[in-house]
């Protein structure tokens, strides 16, 4: 039997085609290929929610808002665009295919475009096959990656950067300089890398203490880098030394509420 991907579509209230019955959720008549979750504005799409949607087993997540520059909320769609951009970068580090996430634009009146977008995305996801997180036995590695990513997106550093990105690039920073998109992307990529690895480390040492070497092996990283992350995590009070076994100090995550 052909693979039928489960696609969750986050649609804004104002781009949702009239024909779609907005009450209730679930599979909607006329659009059987997508499971629609309505929000007022896709600006509402918290990256944590997208990642949680993957955790819950979605094969693909499609976010549709109004074509810029139109937006019922002026620029909620553009804010969402920056979040999705960050998310795709982050997801690409987890082992989950970033192609499983797409942002697209459509007006409520563009029923045909709407259908095209869904079909196209659906095909794309179908080619990728079932999500490694779907089904009864999710891929543990990918799941660990996504859980780490989720923790990162819930944390202030990337959220601060994404939240300020538009302003910094379009209006300028506190020194009245416009930040180049490339420069910002560099900072963002670095931050994503750092925070993702740190988050993975935290989750790995949540229940059992591990050594730098062990962590490095697990994460496929240079132990030197892992140690630097441990330094930061200890400084932040998120990880502590548990004990020293032979040459190896073992670290454990600290409980954080």
């Amino acid at each position: 039997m052909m693979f039928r991907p489960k696609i969750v579509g986050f649609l804004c209230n104002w781009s949702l085609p009239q024909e779609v019955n907005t009450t209730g959720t679930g599979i909607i008549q006329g659009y059987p290929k997508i499971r629609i979750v309505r929000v007022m504005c896709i600006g509402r799409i918290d990256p944590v929610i997208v990642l949680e949607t993957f955790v819950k087993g979605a094969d693909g997540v499609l976010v549709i808002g109004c074509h810029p520059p139109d937006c019922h909320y002026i620029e909620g769609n553009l804010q969402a665009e920056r979040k999705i951009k960050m998310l795709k970068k982050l997801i690409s580090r987890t082992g989950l295919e970033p192609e499983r996430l797409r942002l697209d634009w459509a007006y409520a009146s563009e029923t045909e475009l709407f259908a095209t977008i869904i079909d196209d995305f659906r095909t794309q996801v179908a080619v990728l096959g079932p999500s490694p997180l779907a089904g009864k036995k999710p891929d543990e590695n990918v799941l660990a990656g996504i859980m780490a990513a989720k923790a990162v997106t819930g944390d202030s550093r990337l959220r601060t950067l994404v939240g300020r990105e538009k302003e910094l690039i379009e209006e300028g920073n506190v020194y009245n300089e416009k930040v180049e998109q490339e420069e910002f992307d560099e900072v963002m990529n670095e931050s994503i890398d750092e925070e993702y690895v740190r988050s993975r480390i935290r989750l790995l040492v949540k229940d059992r203490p591990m050594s730098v070497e062990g962590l490095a092996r697990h994460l496929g990283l240079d132990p030197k880098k892992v140690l630097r992350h441990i330094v930061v995590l200890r400084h932040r009070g998120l990880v502590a030394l548990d004990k020293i076994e032979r040459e190896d100090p073992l670290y454990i995550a600290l409980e954080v509420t």
Partner: protein
Amino acid sequence: MKDKVGAVLVVGGGIAGIQASLDLANSGFRVYLLDESPSIGGTMTQLDKTFPTNDCAMCILAPKLVMAGRHPNIELIMGAEIKSVEGEEGHFQVALVRKPRYIDEEKCTGCGVCARKCPIEGIDEFNEGLGERTAIYVKYPQAVPLVYAIDRDKCIGCGTCQEVCKAGAVKYDEKEKRIALHVGSIILSPGFEEFDPKLKGEYGYGRYSNVVSSIEFERILSASGPYGGIVLRPSDGKVPRKIAFIQCVGSRDAKIGNNYCSSACCMYAIKEAIIAKEHNPDLQCTIFFMDVRAYGKEFDAYYNRAEEEYGVKFVRSRVPQIGEVLESQNLLVKYVEDENPATEEFNLVVLSVGMRPPKHAEELAKTLDIKLNKYNFCSSETFSPLETSRPGIYVCGAFSSPKDIPESVAQASGAAAKAASSISSAREMLTTVKEYPPERDVSGEEPRIGVFVCHCGINIGGVVNVPEVVEYVKTLPNVAYAEHNLYTCSEDTQKRIHEIIKEHNLNRVVVASCTPRTHEPLFRETVREAGLNIYLFEMANIRDQCSWVHMHEHEEATEKAKDLVRSIVAKTRLLKPLKKPMIDVTPIGLVIGGGLSGMTAALELAKQDFEAHLVEKEKELGGHLRHIHYLLGSEDPQERLGSIIKEVTENEKIHVHLNSELSDVEGYVGNFKTTLNNDGEKKEIKHGVVIVATGAMEYNPNEYLYGVDERVVTQRELEERLTNGGFNAKTVVMIQCVGSRNGEHPYCSRICCSQAVKNALKIKELSPETDVYVLYKDMRTYGFLEDYYREAASKGVLFINYDDENRPRLVQENGKLKLTVWEPVIKTWTPIEPDLLALSVATLPNPDNEHIAKMLKVPLSKDKFFLEAHMKLRPVDFATEGIFLCGLAHWPKSIEESISQACAAAARAATILSKEALEVEGAIANVNEDFCSGCKICESVCAYNAIEMKEVDGKPRAHVLEALCKGCGVCGSSCPTGAISMLNFTDDQILAQVRAALKEETKYD
């Protein structure tokens, strides 16, 4: 001529700059302390422990930082550099440029929320790149000023810090600021730059992760460092089993042009090895060295302990190369031992990097119009080691030559004396004295306590439910008022506290916030301004001891905060106002010893307008210097001595007492009374301070046929011969460490190596054909003296190393001296027949020391030199206030060092002599004479000699010398009859605090 300006600019905020600033500010001058970085403290803040005492560097430095930061007459100018200096000694016009910090120093409370929320990371320079810091940062947690700064290179300008700063301290529009200063003197203390070990490519620094610099290793050792105090290697975070220390990286190295010795590396390497071993006793440490230059006070003992107690291995070999084992990232250290090339594998290699002149030395010199030496350190002369080539500008610390902390501190005080004496007429012209309202009499009043609970931004408020604590506090007995503040330490809250004290008629105040270590003086000031005695104030630390350590337990932390405040309130109820006794000061100094040090100290006091009595037991002034006829440099010591003696004897303020000795000393700081014995004639002198400059003496050897064969002489005698033309030897052998570094005198006499080099060069100058052999254990020609060592070697002087097992053997054979020397290179005993054998004999402590120490009640070290208050940071002070130390009485030292120290002693003395009266601590010991049994236990335990026994009704009773008591409480807790109580920490107060702290818990039991 214009009036001189009573202000001094100190350039460089390291330990030297801080010490100079404190001494000047405490003796009546206004100080501008400038530093390029955003905080003061310099390199010392990065160090873990200090040799030879293993004190925690930060712990001993922090009080000085705080003092400098809070001193009303020290203005910190951070992030600034000098653009120009016009004018001359007495009145310089200095133009500075201050880089924007982007933070309002007045408003920033140092709470650190900005850094926690900053999304941008950068390399943490303070941790030598081993960790990360954010773009808004404070250099280190105890930084002074505790004001954050924005790293403009990193910052992307997102604005988060400004938003989260509840104190409103961030100002992005800050611009570079030009500052014009008018000062009388300038002190340069810009410190040094670490040698960049990348320049020694053969050691692989920068390529091999596990090759680190010594300063990086300091951070690795430090509990506050990146690894939290566990020694780990950077490549993989494993605990190393074997560490190699490579000495002289960037020092004594002609290839890279740094010929000089960096003076401190041997000791810090030994220290690092010891501390690493203390962290992990299984660790094997090997130090690869050329000479172990443990020439300072107690250094050799430390070296010996490293070797014997800690098992640190010392290998005399210059390491040519280091390689890396690919798989393990271990390091292969190549070296030569017993002429055999060897390779050993280590887990970690520490490169003991040398000191370079500060980065902008040349620019600085150009701006200030001062001369540098060929290595770009500041140029100075033997007899004026603190003076630069431009009058009125002085130098101290590593900028004048590589040196360790105590040398820097001594120099700093010395430079302060110099800077002060040139403008002494302007003393107290620019300093401020604060006027306070009269103290309100609160006796007989029911306690009315006001409690101010601080949110500290979100530092406390983010964890502890502060309003809840306040509501709780209001229910406590005697609490008349309670409120919470965003920052209790902010300027406007001070005004508020002031008003509330008045409005609610409070007679006691509690602030529940951070640590009294940094903030108590501020709040005391506030209550004092409101008319309350400062001892009616208390602090509860609900940040460091509560919110910071219970970050994730909000409810429990809130309960604990209540407990902490309740217990402090309980104590506060019992607080009593205390007086700070004032003692008068006799502005006269007594200097014991008329050698170079004593004369210099007396002169410096006189130049600062204080009278001085100079006591010399000999019939003439001059001491040791009388026997020195030439120097390694070009100056003529006898000529200089002559002019110094002339200056001393002609100075009206100096009263020279020759042929005199002390027969009795009584009194205490500010008020000493000393009886002199001048050939049986007694003379009484009143003075405020004592400077001990009793010098030392030369060892009279009984080794190597000294006194038996006249061809065996001491270096001093050799010098006499070389000066007086009685020299005609063809073969001269010098033996080092005669009487030093042996069982009897285990310490290094410090000056003999350079003395030997000096005389060897003199021989080569007078008689180039003469063969000169120097038999040594380690050539300790530290600092720029290394140049002379190198010169001597290049002129054919042969330096042959010996060790204790293979000492040279001397016999008289057929009227000839026959010396057999173990030649380590060819590994044979080799005979030499010297015409002259010069012994470099030890410098021994003055035998009078014990007698004088007893009179002054000051301690001696186990080698019988005088023991200073603190080897690192108080090198010329005694623990007993008002008594100071300098010259050879402290330790063997060179002319420059003696002069620096003498000046330092004078500067320290001036901090007391410049005051009309001294205010002493009010929270001191108090004796109830009715209970005192006269057992003298208190007297014996007091470290400050602050207790003496007095006859009361014919019985001995303990008596506290208020001027000396530091209030530590040792006497009180030792008193068998409970006769001594500690004011402000009475048993009642402490017990009330304890009971209140435990109250809630017992309820649940």
